[in-house]
Protein backbone atom coordinates (compact mmCIF):
# COMPACT_ATOMS: atom_id res chain seq x y z
CA UNK A 1 0.00 0.00 0.00
CA UNK A 2 1.33 3.48 -0.83
CA UNK A 3 2.16 5.83 2.05
CA UNK A 4 -0.76 8.05 0.98
CA UNK A 5 -3.09 5.06 1.06
CA UNK A 6 -1.79 4.05 4.50
CA UNK A 7 -2.28 7.59 5.81
CA UNK A 8 -5.87 7.63 4.54
CA UNK A 9 -6.53 4.23 6.10
CA UNK A 10 -5.21 5.52 9.44
CA UNK A 11 -7.37 8.62 9.11
CA UNK A 12 -10.50 6.55 8.51
CA UNK A 13 -9.65 4.20 11.39
CA UNK A 14 -9.42 7.24 13.63
CA UNK A 15 -12.71 8.47 12.18
CA UNK A 16 -14.44 5.56 13.85
CA UNK A 17 -16.21 7.34 16.77
CA UNK A 18 -15.24 4.66 19.33
CA UNK A 19 -11.59 4.78 18.23
CA UNK A 20 -11.70 8.58 18.18
CA UNK A 21 -12.99 8.69 21.77
CA UNK A 22 -10.20 6.33 22.92
CA UNK A 23 -7.38 8.17 21.14
CA UNK A 24 -8.60 11.67 22.05
CA UNK A 25 -8.88 10.67 25.73
CA UNK A 26 -5.15 9.88 25.69
CA UNK A 27 -4.19 13.04 23.76
CA UNK A 28 -6.31 15.58 25.66
CA UNK A 29 -4.21 15.91 28.86
CA UNK A 30 -1.00 16.33 26.83
CA UNK A 31 -2.46 18.92 24.48
CA UNK A 32 -4.01 20.76 27.43
CA UNK A 33 -0.66 20.82 29.24
CA UNK A 34 1.16 22.15 26.13
CA UNK A 35 -1.46 24.91 25.79
CA UNK A 36 -1.20 25.92 29.47
CA UNK A 37 2.61 25.98 29.58
CA UNK A 38 3.07 27.75 26.22
CA UNK A 39 0.46 30.43 26.95
CA UNK A 40 1.76 31.02 30.50
CA UNK A 41 5.37 31.33 29.27
CA UNK A 42 4.29 33.48 26.31
CA UNK A 43 2.34 35.86 28.58
CA UNK A 44 5.26 36.28 30.99
CA UNK A 45 7.56 37.16 28.09
CA UNK A 46 4.97 39.37 26.38
CA UNK A 47 4.11 41.42 29.47
CA UNK A 48 7.33 41.45 31.52
CA UNK A 49 10.33 40.70 29.31
CA UNK A 50 9.70 42.19 25.85
CA UNK A 51 10.81 45.86 25.63
CA UNK A 52 8.55 48.51 24.11
CA UNK A 53 8.93 48.72 20.33
CA UNK A 54 10.78 51.80 19.03
CA UNK A 55 7.75 52.78 16.90
CA UNK A 56 4.74 51.10 18.53
CA UNK A 57 5.79 51.56 22.15
CA UNK A 58 3.92 49.26 24.55
CA UNK A 59 1.07 48.68 22.06
CA UNK A 60 3.34 46.03 20.55
CA UNK A 61 2.18 43.82 23.47
CA UNK A 62 -1.27 43.66 21.84
CA UNK A 63 0.36 41.75 18.97
CA UNK A 64 0.95 38.75 21.27
CA UNK A 65 -2.79 38.20 21.64
CA UNK A 66 -3.87 39.61 18.26
CA UNK A 67 -1.65 37.61 15.88
CA UNK A 68 -2.29 34.14 17.44
CA UNK A 69 -6.05 34.83 17.52
CA UNK A 70 -5.98 35.77 13.82
CA UNK A 71 -3.88 32.68 13.06
CA UNK A 72 -6.41 30.41 14.80
CA UNK A 73 -9.32 32.18 13.09
CA UNK A 74 -7.81 31.06 9.77
CA UNK A 75 -6.55 27.63 10.91
CA UNK A 76 -9.98 26.77 12.34
CA UNK A 77 -11.60 27.70 9.03
CA UNK A 78 -9.06 25.58 7.14
CA UNK A 79 -9.81 22.64 9.45
CA UNK A 80 -13.56 23.20 9.02
CA UNK A 81 -13.28 23.34 5.22
CA UNK A 82 -11.09 20.21 5.06
CA UNK A 83 -13.45 18.27 7.33
CA UNK A 84 -16.39 19.52 5.24
CA UNK A 85 -14.69 18.26 2.07
CA UNK A 86 -14.12 14.83 3.66
CA UNK A 87 -17.75 14.83 4.82
CA UNK A 88 -19.02 15.63 1.33
CA UNK A 89 -16.73 13.20 -0.53
CA UNK A 90 -16.58 10.28 1.90
CA UNK A 91 -19.95 10.85 3.62
CA UNK A 92 -18.30 10.14 6.96
CA UNK A 93 -20.45 11.49 9.81
CA UNK A 94 -17.42 12.17 12.04
CA UNK A 95 -16.05 14.58 9.42
CA UNK A 96 -19.30 16.57 9.65
CA UNK A 97 -19.08 16.50 13.44
CA UNK A 98 -15.48 17.78 13.28
CA UNK A 99 -16.45 20.61 10.92
CA UNK A 100 -19.46 21.62 13.02
CA UNK A 101 -17.38 21.56 16.23
CA UNK A 102 -14.66 23.86 14.85
CA UNK A 103 -17.04 26.70 13.88
CA UNK A 104 -17.82 28.27 17.30
CA UNK A 105 -14.13 28.19 18.24
CA UNK A 106 -13.12 29.79 14.96
CA UNK A 107 -15.79 32.46 15.37
CA UNK A 108 -14.56 33.40 18.86
CA UNK A 109 -10.89 33.62 17.81
CA UNK A 110 -11.82 35.63 14.69
CA UNK A 111 -13.87 38.06 16.81
CA UNK A 112 -10.94 38.38 19.24
CA UNK A 113 -8.56 39.11 16.37
CA UNK A 114 -10.89 41.89 15.16
CA UNK A 115 -11.34 43.41 18.66
CA UNK A 116 -7.66 43.31 19.62
CA UNK A 117 -6.68 44.59 16.16
CA UNK A 118 -9.04 47.55 16.59
CA UNK A 119 -7.54 48.31 20.00
CA UNK A 120 -4.09 48.35 18.41
CA UNK A 121 -5.29 50.36 15.40
CA UNK A 122 -6.69 53.29 17.40
CA UNK A 123 -3.35 54.50 18.84
CA UNK A 124 -1.25 53.41 15.83
CA UNK A 125 -3.44 54.27 12.83
CA UNK A 126 -5.66 56.82 14.57
CA UNK A 127 -8.82 54.75 13.98
CA UNK A 128 -10.48 51.64 15.37
CA UNK A 129 -11.63 50.54 11.94
CA UNK A 130 -10.91 51.12 8.29
CA UNK A 131 -12.43 49.31 5.27
CA UNK A 132 -9.04 47.98 4.30
CA UNK A 133 -8.75 44.71 2.32
CA UNK A 134 -7.26 42.66 5.20
CA UNK A 135 -9.72 43.95 7.81
CA UNK A 136 -12.75 43.64 5.55
CA UNK A 137 -11.89 40.09 4.44
CA UNK A 138 -11.35 39.16 8.09
CA UNK A 139 -14.75 40.60 9.03
CA UNK A 140 -16.21 38.50 6.20
CA UNK A 141 -14.59 35.44 7.83
CA UNK A 142 -16.54 36.14 11.02
CA UNK A 143 -19.78 36.39 8.99
CA UNK A 144 -18.93 33.08 7.27
CA UNK A 145 -18.58 31.39 10.65
CA UNK A 146 -21.87 32.89 11.85
CA UNK A 147 -23.62 31.88 8.61
CA UNK A 148 -22.24 28.36 8.87
CA UNK A 149 -23.53 27.97 12.45
CA UNK A 150 -26.88 29.51 11.51
CA UNK A 151 -27.23 27.01 8.66
CA UNK A 152 -26.64 24.05 11.00
CA UNK A 153 -29.30 25.43 13.38
CA UNK A 154 -31.81 26.21 10.65
CA UNK A 155 -31.98 22.74 9.04
CA UNK A 156 -33.41 20.00 11.25
CA UNK A 157 -32.24 16.99 9.26
CA UNK A 158 -28.56 16.46 10.22
CA UNK A 159 -27.51 15.00 6.87
CA UNK A 160 -29.01 17.86 4.88
CA UNK A 161 -27.67 20.44 7.32
CA UNK A 162 -24.17 18.95 7.07
CA UNK A 163 -24.28 19.02 3.28
CA UNK A 164 -25.51 22.61 3.03
CA UNK A 165 -23.04 23.82 5.68
CA UNK A 166 -20.18 21.95 4.00
CA UNK A 167 -20.87 23.70 0.67
CA UNK A 168 -20.86 27.08 2.43
CA UNK A 169 -17.60 26.18 4.21
CA UNK A 170 -15.92 25.20 0.94
CA UNK A 171 -17.10 28.28 -0.96
CA UNK A 172 -16.02 30.48 1.96
CA UNK A 173 -12.53 28.96 1.97
CA UNK A 174 -11.73 31.41 -0.85
CA UNK A 175 -11.88 34.16 1.78
CA UNK A 176 -8.99 32.57 3.73
CA UNK A 177 -6.84 32.82 0.59
CA UNK A 178 -7.95 36.43 0.11
CA UNK A 179 -7.06 37.23 3.76
CA UNK A 180 -3.61 35.71 3.36
CA UNK A 181 -2.74 37.56 0.13
CA UNK A 182 -4.81 40.74 0.64
CA UNK A 183 -1.75 42.68 1.81
CA UNK A 184 0.14 41.68 -1.37
CA UNK A 185 -2.70 42.12 -3.87
CA UNK A 186 -3.91 45.53 -2.68
CA UNK A 187 -2.19 48.54 -1.22
CA UNK A 188 -3.61 48.41 2.29
CA UNK A 189 -3.22 50.22 5.59
CA UNK A 190 -2.57 46.85 7.26
CA UNK A 191 1.14 46.07 7.20
CA UNK A 192 2.45 43.43 4.82
CA UNK A 193 3.42 39.86 5.67
CA UNK A 194 6.13 39.97 8.35
CA UNK A 195 6.36 36.37 9.63
CA UNK A 196 5.50 33.73 6.99
CA UNK A 197 7.38 35.26 4.08
CA UNK A 198 10.11 34.26 1.67
CA UNK A 199 13.40 35.47 3.08
CA UNK A 200 12.41 34.88 6.70
CA UNK A 201 10.57 36.92 9.31
CA UNK A 202 11.09 40.67 9.51
CA UNK A 203 10.50 40.73 13.26
CA UNK A 204 13.35 40.86 15.79
CA UNK A 205 13.84 37.56 17.72
CA UNK A 206 12.99 39.27 21.01
CA UNK A 207 9.44 39.78 19.68
CA UNK A 208 9.35 36.63 17.57
CA UNK A 209 9.92 34.11 20.38
CA UNK A 210 7.02 35.18 22.61
CA UNK A 211 4.85 35.37 19.50
CA UNK A 212 5.92 31.86 18.55
CA UNK A 213 5.12 30.56 22.06
CA UNK A 214 1.71 32.22 22.06
CA UNK A 215 0.98 30.78 18.59
CA UNK A 216 1.86 27.27 19.84
CA UNK A 217 -0.25 27.84 22.96
CA UNK A 218 -3.29 29.11 21.01
CA UNK A 219 -2.96 26.24 18.49
CA UNK A 220 -2.82 23.65 21.29
CA UNK A 221 -5.74 25.36 23.04
CA UNK A 222 -7.79 25.26 19.84
CA UNK A 223 -6.94 21.55 19.36
CA UNK A 224 -7.84 20.83 23.01
CA UNK A 225 -11.22 22.57 22.83
CA UNK A 226 -11.95 21.16 19.35
CA UNK A 227 -11.40 17.57 20.53
CA UNK A 228 -13.68 18.14 23.54
CA UNK A 229 -16.39 19.64 21.31
CA UNK A 230 -16.16 16.66 18.91
CA UNK A 231 -16.44 14.28 21.87
CA UNK A 232 -19.48 16.23 23.11
CA UNK A 233 -21.19 16.01 19.72
CA UNK A 234 -20.54 12.23 19.53
CA UNK A 235 -22.06 11.73 23.00
CA UNK A 236 -25.08 13.91 22.12
CA UNK A 237 -25.65 11.89 18.94
CA UNK A 238 -25.49 8.69 20.98
CA UNK A 239 -28.12 10.12 23.36
CA UNK A 240 -30.36 10.96 20.39
CA UNK A 241 -29.80 7.49 18.88
CA UNK A 242 -30.71 5.73 22.16
CA UNK A 243 -33.80 7.92 22.64
CA UNK A 244 -34.82 7.27 19.01
CA UNK A 245 -34.50 3.50 19.48
CA UNK A 246 -36.49 3.61 22.72
CA UNK A 247 -39.25 5.65 21.10
CA UNK A 248 -39.78 2.98 18.40
Amino acid at each position, binding site marked *: MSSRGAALTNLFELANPKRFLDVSAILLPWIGAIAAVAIAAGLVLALFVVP*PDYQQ*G*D*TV*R*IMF*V*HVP*AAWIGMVAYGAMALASLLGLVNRHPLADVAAKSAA*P*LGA*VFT*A*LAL*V*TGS*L*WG*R*PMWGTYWVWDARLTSFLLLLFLYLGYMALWSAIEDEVRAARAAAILALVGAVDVVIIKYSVDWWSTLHQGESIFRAGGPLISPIFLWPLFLMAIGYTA*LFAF*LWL*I*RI*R*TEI*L*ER*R*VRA*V*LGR*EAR
Partner: protein
Amino acid sequence: MLLHFLAMGGYAAFVWPAYAASFVGIGAIAWTTVRDYARAKRRLKQIDAEVRR
Protein backbone atom coordinates in the same frame (compact mmCIF):
# COMPACT_ATOMS: atom_id res chain seq x y z
CA MET B 1 7.27 50.39 39.52
CA LEU B 2 3.82 48.73 39.49
CA LEU B 3 2.13 51.94 38.33
CA HIS B 4 4.73 52.31 35.61
CA PHE B 5 3.99 48.76 34.44
CA LEU B 6 0.22 49.28 34.55
CA ALA B 7 0.53 52.54 32.60
CA MET B 8 1.98 50.62 29.61
CA GLY B 9 3.84 53.69 28.40
CA GLY B 10 0.60 55.66 28.18
CA TYR B 11 -1.24 52.97 26.18
CA ALA B 12 -2.95 51.21 29.13
CA ALA B 13 -6.40 52.09 27.73
CA PHE B 14 -5.63 49.91 24.68
CA VAL B 15 -3.28 47.19 25.96
CA TRP B 16 -5.28 46.04 29.00
CA PRO B 17 -8.68 45.91 27.25
CA ALA B 18 -7.05 43.78 24.51
CA TYR B 19 -5.80 41.30 27.13
CA ALA B 20 -9.09 41.46 29.04
CA ALA B 21 -11.11 40.76 25.87
CA SER B 22 -8.85 37.78 25.06
CA PHE B 23 -9.16 36.44 28.61
CA VAL B 24 -12.96 36.81 28.66
CA GLY B 25 -13.49 35.46 25.12
CA ILE B 26 -11.26 32.42 25.52
CA GLY B 27 -12.49 31.84 29.08
CA ALA B 28 -16.12 31.90 27.94
CA ILE B 29 -15.66 29.45 25.04
CA ALA B 30 -13.51 27.14 27.21
CA TRP B 31 -16.09 27.20 30.00
CA THR B 32 -19.08 26.47 27.70
CA THR B 33 -17.10 23.72 25.94
CA VAL B 34 -16.26 21.92 29.19
CA ARG B 35 -19.76 22.50 30.63
CA ASP B 36 -21.48 21.06 27.52
CA TYR B 37 -19.17 18.04 27.57
CA ALA B 38 -19.89 17.31 31.25
CA ARG B 39 -23.63 17.72 30.57
CA ALA B 40 -23.53 15.31 27.58
CA LYS B 41 -21.59 12.71 29.59
CA ARG B 42 -24.07 12.95 32.47
CA ARG B 43 -27.06 12.68 30.11
CA LEU B 44 -25.68 9.61 28.30
CA LYS B 45 -24.92 7.89 31.61
CA GLN B 46 -28.43 8.66 32.87
CA ILE B 47 -30.09 7.37 29.69
CA ASP B 48 -27.93 4.23 29.64
CA ALA B 49 -29.01 3.50 33.23
CA GLU B 50 -32.68 4.06 32.34
CA VAL B 51 -32.46 1.76 29.31
CA ARG B 52 -30.82 -1.02 31.35
CA ARG B 53 -33.61 -0.89 33.95
